[in-house]
């Protein structure tokens, strides 16, 4: 059974602008956001996941995006160092909560920006890490050292896809689906060299945050608006669960951003 961390969207809203999706003039509709989050929660429970909820905090509207809390491997939790001060306040709440759950909290040096599972996803035996907009490449070296794993650092070049989990989603069979244009040519080559079966997501579908998906064994929970991708995943034997995510996409997040795996991997080998 996969254990996941979610945070109810009680205080969620567009209160600042720290990515190209956010606009305070085009705020999220609270009731609809609540409904969309509840549908995600319910879907994950239906998929037999154990869902933990952390108490939301006033003044921290993006705490709902728990993927950015940190990275969990086995019983070890590496908290994020948020680049933007608007989100930095989330860190102590997540760290304390994980500690209370019995996880060993391993801190990164304060000067290294790192935004958790948002920029660090295991695929095969490698940890794929995105850098430039939010996480520093130096944080990848530190994490690779802490976890003793291979970290493939890839540069993100499109500010709309500012976290790795907005444009790259590894699959349990070793493949992945991704939006190649979000990476520079070296990042694209590095991913192609390490991932055998890659499904390219079309630009119009990537814009619906289709890569921001939660994979639970053969089930994939992703935002609606990607019929071509859903067909191709279906061909590979995956069941897709398409959810409305409009109110979270307004803040630059969707299904995966709302979820952190506890842990993402039991171990790195």
């Amino acid at each position, binding site marked *: 059974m996969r254990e996941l961390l979610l945070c109810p969207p009680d205080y969620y809203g567009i209160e600042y602008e720290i990515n190209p999706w956010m606009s305070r003039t085009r705020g999220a509709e609270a009731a609809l956001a609540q409904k969309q989050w509840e549908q995600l929660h319910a879907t994950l429970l239906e998929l037999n996941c154990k869902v933990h909820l952390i108490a939301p905090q006033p003044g921290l509207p993006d705490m709902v995006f728990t993927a950015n809390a940190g990275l969990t491997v086995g019983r070890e939790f590496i908290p994020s160092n948020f680049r933007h001060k608007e989100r930095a306040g989330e860190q102590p709440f997540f760290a304390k909560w994980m500690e209370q759950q019995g996880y060993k909290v391993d801190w990164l040096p304060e000067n290294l920006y790192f935004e958790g599972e948002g920029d660090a996803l295991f695929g095969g*035996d490698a940890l794929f890490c995105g850098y430039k907009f939010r996480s520093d490449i*130096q944080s990848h070296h530190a994490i*690779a050292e802490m976890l003793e794993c*291979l970290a*493939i*650092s890839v540069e993100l070049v499109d500010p709309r896809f500012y976290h790795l989990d907005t444009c790259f989603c590894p699959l349990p069979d070793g493949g992945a689906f991704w939006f190649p244009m979000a990476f520079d040519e*070296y990042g694209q080559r*590095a991913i192609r060299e390490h991932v055998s079966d890659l499904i390219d997501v079309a630009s119009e579908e990537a814009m619906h945050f289709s890569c921001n998906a939660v994979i639970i064994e053969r089930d994939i929970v992703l935002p609606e608006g990607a019929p071509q991708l859903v067909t191709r995943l279906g061909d590979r034997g995956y069941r897709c669960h398409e959810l409305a995510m409009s109110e979270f996409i307004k803040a630059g997040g969707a299904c995966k951003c709302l979820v952190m795996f506890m842990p993402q991997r039991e171990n790195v080998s």
Partner: protein
Amino acid sequence: MFSETIELRGHIIDSLILPKVLDQILTHGANFKIGEIKIGKRRADQSFARIEVSAETTEALDELILRLRQHGAEVAKHEDAQVASAPADGVFPRDFYVTTNQQTFVRFDGKEIEVRPAMMDSAIAVDRKRGAARAVKFFDVHKGDEIVVGHQGVRVVPVQRATSRTDVFQFINTIIDADEPKSAIIRELAGELRRARVAKGKIAAVVGPAIVRTDAGQHLVRLIESHYVDRLFAGNSFAAYDLERALFGTCLGISPDLAFARGGRENLVRAVNAIREAGGIAAAVQKKIVTSGIMHACVRHNVDIVLTGSIRDEGPIPGVTTDAIEAHKVMRGKLTDVTHALLLATLQHSLAVASMLPPTVKTVCVDIDSSAVERAVEHQPLQSIGLVTDVEPFLRELADCLSEPRVRG
């Protein structure tokens, strides 16, 4: 060129960060030299690379480094150079850094200072208040002077081959042996000297007595008359031979116009006496005592004559610097703005001059002895050409290429 050392860590091979960084350096018009690279053995092992990045300007370098930092490049920490006080006048502290003639920098308080001038087989004296560093010989050093010791904080930048234009120095860069053709090379050299003259470069000729003895003086005179010599470096005997030829038509008593003539030193001694009596070479020319020859041409065309002495000299001729240390200082002073040096048929004098030249000076060495050519060329490995030949045909052909066409009347 300005340079900085960067370090890359992490899974830089699997992530293609190393090739990305190297490509970015080149696409920004800069260059790199990989100093050290350690590749991780196991999958999880991280790799390491230390890379020296060099660019044309500090601004270009700073901008590039800023970009590379985004990909994890960290500027390597540099240590300052170490200094010790000179224990006495004319004595360097033990373990002093011995210079090459390459461009050299020393680091103090995190900043690099260029050592000026670059001179080989010297020590580096530092004036930290003025932010200056200079290469010093034994006679330059005084008790208490701060002298660089050890290698820490010292960086040597070898001369890079120019890529924009292939001139004869970049193209040949070797020794042309006695049995190899030389005409094409001499034509190329003539072209180089022509360009040097147009670009207001300074050409030094370092000349030995064989030029006078082989009757090649007339060709050197043609070069002087055509303004291809700005400084003439020679010994007392070179001047004495040339003046004997001018005054008596002989060289060591031998007339070059006579086959199998036997000579003697009488005319030489008389020539030296005549110049001493006249009050020096320039005075002898002005008084029309000397009316031909190389010294005459130099005086008439305002070529700086730098004459130094040795133990076997007759005279000396007035104006010859006989103190060896003083001679070194004078020669060094007269070489500071030289761009081209012709080292012609004189081993010791050529080696002395070559050891004082910065590595950017283009050097041509001509000698009939191949080992002499090799030793002189060694000093400027990237900027010199050696020709093993009798100096007379070399000078004749070079002068033919460069002399102003004579007006026929």
